[in-house]
């Protein structure tokens, strides 16, 4: 009995029709393809994209060079050097992130006691040479300055879960 059933199924291209039916269903279903860059997927406030360094409202950089992010970074992508500034405060003289190493885990952001290093919503950046993705302190601060409004909004949204 099984064998006969099998024979007819093969003969009448049942599997083919079944497959085509699925294709047909999707042919008329709502499309989910996003036409990047004209269209964009929605982003959560915890989106982990390109890094940025923030400043306080008075323009003072937040980073105090505690090196917790350097210590926690699983990809060893962060390199920091610290010295005493003339006013006696502890500041970084070097803060580099090698984005070719970075795995965007967000640990740096999580470990930062002053919310200085953050990951922004930016994900469409590129480098043409290998060195282009080696971000230094001025570059990170510039990103922070440019996107501070969005960054602050995201931190505020996340604050009640922290």
């Amino acid at each position: 009995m099984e064998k006969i059933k099998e024979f007819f199924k093969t003969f009448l291209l049942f599997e083919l029709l079944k497959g085509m039916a699925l294709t047909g269903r999707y042919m008329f279903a709502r499309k989910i393809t996003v036409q990047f860059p004209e269209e964009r997927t929605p982003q959560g406030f915890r989106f982990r994209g390109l890094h940025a360094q923030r400043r306080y409202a008075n323009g003072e950089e937040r980073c105090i060079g505690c090196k917790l992010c350097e210590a926690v970074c699983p990809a060893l992508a962060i390199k920091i050097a610290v010295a005493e500034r003339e006013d006696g405060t502890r500041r970084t003289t070097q803060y580099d992130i090698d984005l070719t190493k970075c795995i965007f885990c967000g640990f740096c952001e999580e470990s930062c006691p002053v919310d200085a290093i953050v990951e922004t919503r930016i994900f469409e950046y590129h480098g043409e040479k290998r060195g282009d993705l080696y971000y230094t302190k001025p570059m990170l601060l510039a990103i922070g300055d440019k996107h501070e409004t969005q960054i602050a909004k995201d931190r505020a949204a996340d604050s009640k879960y922290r």
Partner: protein
Amino acid sequence: MINIEIDGKLVETEQGSTVMDAAHKAGVYIPHFCYHKKLSISANCRMCLVEVEKAPKPLPACATPAADGMKVHTHSELAVKAQKGVMEFLLINHPLDCPICDQGGECQLQDVAMGYGGGESRYTEEKRVVSPKQIGELISTNEMSRCIQCTRCVRFGQEIAGIMELGMANRTEHAQIMSFVNSSVDSELSGNMIDLCPVGALTSKPFRYTARSWELSRRKSVSPHDGLGSNLAVHTKDNKVVRVVAAENEAVNECWISDKDRFSYEGLNSPERLTRPMIKQDGKWIEVDWAPALEYVANGLRQIASNAGAEHIAALATPHSTFEELYLLQKLLRGIGSGNVDYRLRQSDFSADGKQAGAPWLGMPVADINAADRFLIVGSFLRKDHPLLAQRIRQAVKHGAQANIVHAADDDLLMPVVNKAIIAPNELLNMLAQVLKALASEKQTALPAAVQQAVAAVTVTAAAGAIAQSLSGGQQVAVLLGNFAQQHPQAAQIGLLAEQIAALCAGRFGYLGEAANSVGAYLAGAVPFAGDVQGMNAAQMLSEPRKAYLLLNVEPELDMHNPQLAMNAMRAADMVVAMSAYKHHAMDYADVLLPVVPFSETSGTFVNTEGRAQSFKGAVKPLAEARPAWKVLRVLGNLLDVSGFDYDTSEAVRAEGLHTLSLDDKLGNRIAGVEINITADGNGAGLQRVSDVPIYSADALVRRAVSLQKTTDAAVPCVMLHGSELQKLGVVSGDTVKVSQGEASVQLTVQANNQLPPGTARVAAGHPATAALGAMFGTIEITTGHSTKQPENACQVAGHSVERA
């Protein structure tokens, strides 16, 4: 012995020990801050509260004596509640600035808060703020708000350093750790307070913000400075030494190190470091590769050996060099036929050469110092020359020992001294003879005939009698000769008399080794009378100038007994090869500079003053083209075709030179065949020079330690005179006078110092300001009227410390 139960573990502990000691024995950790095994118990942090059965309240483990049958719980509900409560109180006023605190990551408060504290704080009121203090160039007290008032630093000052430089002022919330008004912390052991501080209130100023503790690699090493051979933990980051802390060795340095050991690492990273071999050609220095530089040296030496004879080649080495370096240096010299090798650069009396039983050493293990009950310390700037040995003597004195001093300067030793004989340098021998004579009559023992004859003529003064009386009452007598006595022009006789004094009391006699490897250098044969080829000693090499000098880490104008003579000899020489880690004054007269590395960059061995051979490995790689001196000497040996120079490792050199690590039969202070001739010479015109080597000028490394050079101990030396001498000259403290010795003279600020005997003038050696003068002993003249410009110095600060002392 009593039995006590801690957390269910039965331990046997001594009568009179505390619960904390018992817990330590049982391997149970009780959190604590103010308790430290080397300091007295204050029980003021309350962190070590534990539950003791039948006690109504939790008791502090550090201050509760263990009693038989006591049952202690460290993790019971009551104990945990107490610990949590104390922790919460301690954190009330502690700022939450761990991210910028240098102690972060190695902080006791952080660790204990993690282990025993609650999750979060209920305290929402304002925290107290303590104003920053300025207590010197070594310890940073910028964040005194972090202090939890454990008073370890205060107790350290009182009990270990011997002077209470920090204290706790005010009460309760206003309590603050501070120094006395406007004074800095100048103790030569002050850096230990940084280690002791369980929080980040006292941190290292030179290290400030350099690295976090988790970034550092830790390497064991041995101090290259004084004769003790303190064990160090060298912390490195990115192939650079960034910090040095104490490594515990109960038999040597306990858990302390001196500031010199701790902060001299700054000299390792000095911009003056020599990085490439250099040759002087037509008066100009050019950098070359190793091969041509060594060829140049080998050719030069070969030429001088064949033209003038090998005995015209001389080698001087500092006893801060490693055993391996010194062994190869003397082997090289002897290999090319010259015995002119010496490490005793500041010594002036060589009459005991070959007459001493072995290497001059401490005469006892360092740890035995604590057990001695009578000390006779002869000719030693004890605190500055041997900070930690002084500390051990201080502990012994605290436990009832009596210290007696025979010296030319009455510097404050920060311990009670029962008898002092402060005399001019040329009376040192006479004073010892008096002590010996008084002691012999006290003990009613006959002296050996030769000695008896020599001391017969002296008249015993009251001071000598008192010293003899003190010594004769002792069971464990230690007679110790300091650097000053070893550098004295009658050092051999002083040694002989001191040995006799010790023998009369059945005590021990020893030399406080000047440098990290003073004993090792002797054992390595870096003396002219060792081995088959004999030669000239350090003084002869200069008084009868040689044609070629090999300098191993030596800066002749600062390291030699007579810098004047040394410089003349160097300038007159055909060839001077300076093996040095630094570009220094040798640029003027040397022909070749070979960059060798300091202790942190080579493997090696130091044999400390008690004869303990301590080997260490390099902590970092050699800087640039600099190479370990033993490698340089090895290649030089090959180039000069000296046989037996095929070592692969420094261990192979040590194995050949040191044979075995049991050194007992190679150490010996017994002197035989030295005539005693007690005459006070040179009591003519002028003042007797008393010269110390300032603590931060003693060797090449520490001279370049920037922070140490800013301390009061590193101030430009003044000429110090007894007040009566000042009156005679008609000058007052602060005036500039002309100090002349022989043909040379320098301008120095004059300073009254009534701790000196009249008729003497204290002028430090080993400092550029006085390098133009001659020998460390002798007469100097002081003339006034040359009111040239005031030498730029910090003499007033130095004077201040003298007055306080």
